[in-house]
């Protein structure tokens, strides 16, 4: 494939353009967050920190940030627990039933989100979970479980179940064998599943629009309503902060993964 230059040049150009298309909106969000203008404009006429001040100085935004972070953390924990358990069970049993159950667990990925949203809205309206933290966490756990399941399933595929058998034959009970033999080896896939769950909960918008409210508004819901009212650079500031936070979580996670893989 090294023979001719022209096709490779053409390919390179196309790839570069597509990548530019992908990062372009992100590239303008960060500068806009430091704008000193009242409205969202690019390039900004001047720079200031006023929109970060607007965010940190507003109790409603701060409350929404707390709700979002709390919900995302609780979602990551919940979805990782039940998703890992489910993936482990599915990989143990190779039956046809397991295959169809996998499909059910992955449903939240493919049911159009608006339909999911009105469905969840209906269930919550009947059970009094509308505009509550437990409701938000439950909904996000449901949406995030598929990420954990797929990630952990992939991790388990590269794992030899015989190792766990050996541990059990040495007298460990099942849970201990899983925790001390299996889990350390599939840890990267569990961590990446948890990360995805965290980030998906942080970014979830459509379901939150329907079910969040009162004191329990997520950042995305508040952004949606606030944008209807006024399109100012606060959202660019929030978005930049969220990006930074997500990146930091990823870096921390990969650092800890590397550390654990270096000491066996």
């Amino acid at each position: 494939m090294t023979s001719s230059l022209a096709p490779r040049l053409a390919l390179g150009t196309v790839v570069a353009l597509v990548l530019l298309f992908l990062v372009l909106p992100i590239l303008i969000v960060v500068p806009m967050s430091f704008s000193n203008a009242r409205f969202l404009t690019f390039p900004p006429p001047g720079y200031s920190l006023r929109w970060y001040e607007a965010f940190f100085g507003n109790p409603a935004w701060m409350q929404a940030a707390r709700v979002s972070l709390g919900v995302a953390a609780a979602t990551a924990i919940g979805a990782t627990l039940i998703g890992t358990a489910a993936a482990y069970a599915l990989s143990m049993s190779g039956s046809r039933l397991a295959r169809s159950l996998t499909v059910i667990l992955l449903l939240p990925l493919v049911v159009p989100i608006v339909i999911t949203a009105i469905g969840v809205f209906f269930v919550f309206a009947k059970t009094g979970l509308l505009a509550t933290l437990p409701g938000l966490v439950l909904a996000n756990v449901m949406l995030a479980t598929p990420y954990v399941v797929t990630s952990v399933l992939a991790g388990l595929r590269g794992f030899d179940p015989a190792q766990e058998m050996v541990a059990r034959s040495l007298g460990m009970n099942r849970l201990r064998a899983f925790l001390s033999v299996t889990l350390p080896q599939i840890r990267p896939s569990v961590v990446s599943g948890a990360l995805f769950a965290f980030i998906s909960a942080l970014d979830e918008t459509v379901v939150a629009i329907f079910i969040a409210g009162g004191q329990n508004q997520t950042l995305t819901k508040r952004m949606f309503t606030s944008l209807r009212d006024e399109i100012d650079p606060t959202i660019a500031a929030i978005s930049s902060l969220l990006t930074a936070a997500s990146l930091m979580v990823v870096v921390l996670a990969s650092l800890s993964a590397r550390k654990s893989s270096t000491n066996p």
Partner: protein
Amino acid sequence: MASLLRWTALACLLGTAAPALAAEQITFVSQGGAYQQAQTKAILDPAAKALGITINQDSAPDAWPVIRTQGATGKPTWDVVDTPTQDCVRGGKAGLIEKLDFSKIPNAAAIPASYKTEYSVPYEFYSSVLAYNKSKYGKNPPQGWADFWDVKKFPGARALRNHPLATLEAALMADGVAPDKLYPLDVDRAFRKLEAIKPHISVWWTSGGQSALLIQGGEVDMEMMWNGRVSAVMEAGADADYTYNQGILQNTSLCILKNAPNLATAVKFVNEAIDPKLQANLPLNIPYGPGNPAAFDTGIIPAALAAKLPSAPDNAKKQAVLSAEWWTSEAGEAALKRWADFVQKK
């Protein structure tokens, strides 16, 4: 992680325990953003202080669906809503809004009867005005809805709100109906007129924020907007201007949800919120007119500012006054339903 868990648990506890702790409080709902911030400073904080109550705030750009949902559960969480008057009236007709006991709202006495309903008191006035790109039209800007409809004399991209309210009124005025002879609206005639301008409308906007970005980013040259929105983009240096000619004067009102959790406090709050002095504070923070005209007599609003307000007498006389009564009638409801068909059809 452990602390986050603890935090979540704590937040759940606080969420359920808080209402029992405070002495007197209400949940007040408005439309959010700069407008809600302005009234917090002008009206809500002073009212809370004067009455010694806690005012919890919520916001909903469109309160109506929420009012309906909360009503359906029989246990609303909101007390007082600031929303376009027609929501109060149709909510009242549907048993979702309390009838007001005006003997407990003495401040309402100074308000003209035409602004009040059995369910609501006026809170603030705004207007749907014709805004335009200033440099594009130079010395000869559009002066009314007939000009907005005249695509030959005034070329350019246009936007209207994706909602029949005020839009039907504008269409009828463009067709020559006098501002004071609009009601009952001739809906067929209005939609016929709208069909004519439809190919030239490049955006049907759905939110105030969007309408501001449209004129500020140059996406359109002419659009129907709320006066406070145009003033805001003009202050921010945008190349825009507007006219009160044939503007459609509208107001939001305060009303109380049926079975509101803090009914007695809510009534006290409603009275305080339309106090002329607090009302006069509002235009100092955002260019909307006070709902209680007595505010103009307090001396708090400077004359130069008063002249810019939509409900100031000189401006009011150039405009049509929207009839919440008509829009909550059967004909009004039918017009609302007809709108979706109109916008979607090619």
